[in-house]
């Protein structure tokens, strides 16, 4: 067992040595693989971030009911009772127009602008927490609530989140397609590298076979080389993605400050990073395996 380990390690060392000896060519290969993988990985990281934003902002869906400006206290009470009795309503919160103005002043730093207003332009509002959570039922409820007397406008707060979610679904599919295509490219790059190696080492392969090398012994260095090249490409991709996210974070920070919010792009999670490395390792191995199967005619 220990013996076999030592042998595998020495093959691995030889593969790495060969890769370093190949110099610029080897580096370019790794760079190509890295860039190819960094595109879907980077898009995936961005999607994950947007997704996080959606979850954070949408939380539980709410329906805002903005009342007509001429709604009196009586109207508001009647509406409150109606809402409380509604079976699809889980909870209600009343936001008086003055209160809303105060909140607006505090949250967006537009004190000057608001201070310049002659009168409060905001209406009274109810914030309704609905019981159903699927988009369709929410939409029906919203329509129903909009019909209530003195309700000027009923707005589903998380409508945009649902639209974004649909958009994200589209984005994820695009990432998947891109990842599949570029994985094929990675396999092709490895396939070709290994093909060239087999050609240049034809003599060694022939002699080894004549003096008793098993198929496994002959295949092994090529498979290790492919897997290592894939792994290094994966590391390169990870570095590209992480560096890009860090670079983007600075201007994004400035941008989000303008909107008085704090939004930072998170790097790839540990699990995602490991998946990326494992995936690139496997693809390299697969490319090498296909090449060996095709060109070694064992």
């Amino acid at each position: 067992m220990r013996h076999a380990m030592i042998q595998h390690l020495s093959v691995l060392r030889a593969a790495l040595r060969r890769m370093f000896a190949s110099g610029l060519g080897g580096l370019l290969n790794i760079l190509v693989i890295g860039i190819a993988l960094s595109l879907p990985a980077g898009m995936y990281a961005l999607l994950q971030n947007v997704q996080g934003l959606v979850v954070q902002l949408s939380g539980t869906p709410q329906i805002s009911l903005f009342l007509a400006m001429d709604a009196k206290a009586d109207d508001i009470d009647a509406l409150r009772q109606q809402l409380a009795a509604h079976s699809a309503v889980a909870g209600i919160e009343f936001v008086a127009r003055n209160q809303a103005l105060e909140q607006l002043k505090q949250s967006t730093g537009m004190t000057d602008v608001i201070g310049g207003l002659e009168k409060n332009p905001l209406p009274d509002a109810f914030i309704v927490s609905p019981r159903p959570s699927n988009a369709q039922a929410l939409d029906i409820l919203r329509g129903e609530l909009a019909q209530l007397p003195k309700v000027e406008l009923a707005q589903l707060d998380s409508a945009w989140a649902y639209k974004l979610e649909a958009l994200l679904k589209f984005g994820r599919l695009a990432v998947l397609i891109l990842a599949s295509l570029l994985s094929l490219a990675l396999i092709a790059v490895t396939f070709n590298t290994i093909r060239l190696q087999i050609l240049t080492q034809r003599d060694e392969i022939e002699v080894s076979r004549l003096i008793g090398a098993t198929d496994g012994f002959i295949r092994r260095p090529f498979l290790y080389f492919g897997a290592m090249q894939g792994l290094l490409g994966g590391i390169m991709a990870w570095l590209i993605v992480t560096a890009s996210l860090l670079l983007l974070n600075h201007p994004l920070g400035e941008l989000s400050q303008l909107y008085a919010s704090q939004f930072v792009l998170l790097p790839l999670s540990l699990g995602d990073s490991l998946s990326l490395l494992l995936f690139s390792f496997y693809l390299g191995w697969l490319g090498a395996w296909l090449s060996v199967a095709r060109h070694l005619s064992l």
Partner: protein
Amino acid sequence: MISFNQVHKRYPGGYEALKGVSFDIAEGEMVFLTGHSGAGKSTLLKLVAAIERPNSGSVLVNNQNVGVLKGGALPYLRRNLGIIFQDHKLLFDRSVFDNVLLPLQICGFDHRESAKRARAALDKVGLLKREKTHPIALSGGEQQRLCIARAIVNRPAILLADEPTGNLDAAYAQEIMAIFKSFHQVGVTLLISTHDESVLRDSGVRRLALKEGELQP
């Protein structure tokens, strides 16, 4: 140790290299295989190592019919054989030492043991001082000796040599034959193909004479 029984070998295209060859070589025996070029000497050696397969008849090596050996078993047969190729088949991308190391790496010896054995083999053929040289810098005779070192480093029971003195001058050829005799003395079975008269003058060694694919009486 090596036993041929009515072995026929026909190459694609119809050329008949061996026509019903039968012989036995006992364990520890040293045998010369003679004949003009094209007589079938190389083919015969290739059949022993299962580099070629017979069309009919049986080739037994160590009581194993190598003619029908499965691909997966071939490596293990060849590890028991030391083969000295007519065209040397040295690897020019590595040092003399690493050339000799290759069979040991293939068999999975650990590094220290391999290095020790490789140096012993190089010492045996008088190339120890040149272990760091690349084969391209060796003379023809030295390349031949390197090929021998690589063939014996595994300590095989059978040594096959295809024209080992092929284009060497007489002094070198004698030197090589002396090396072979020393293996014979320690019990290695040797089958050496040659058409070199200066070597054959050396009597006392059994000969198998091939002529146009048939064994001469």
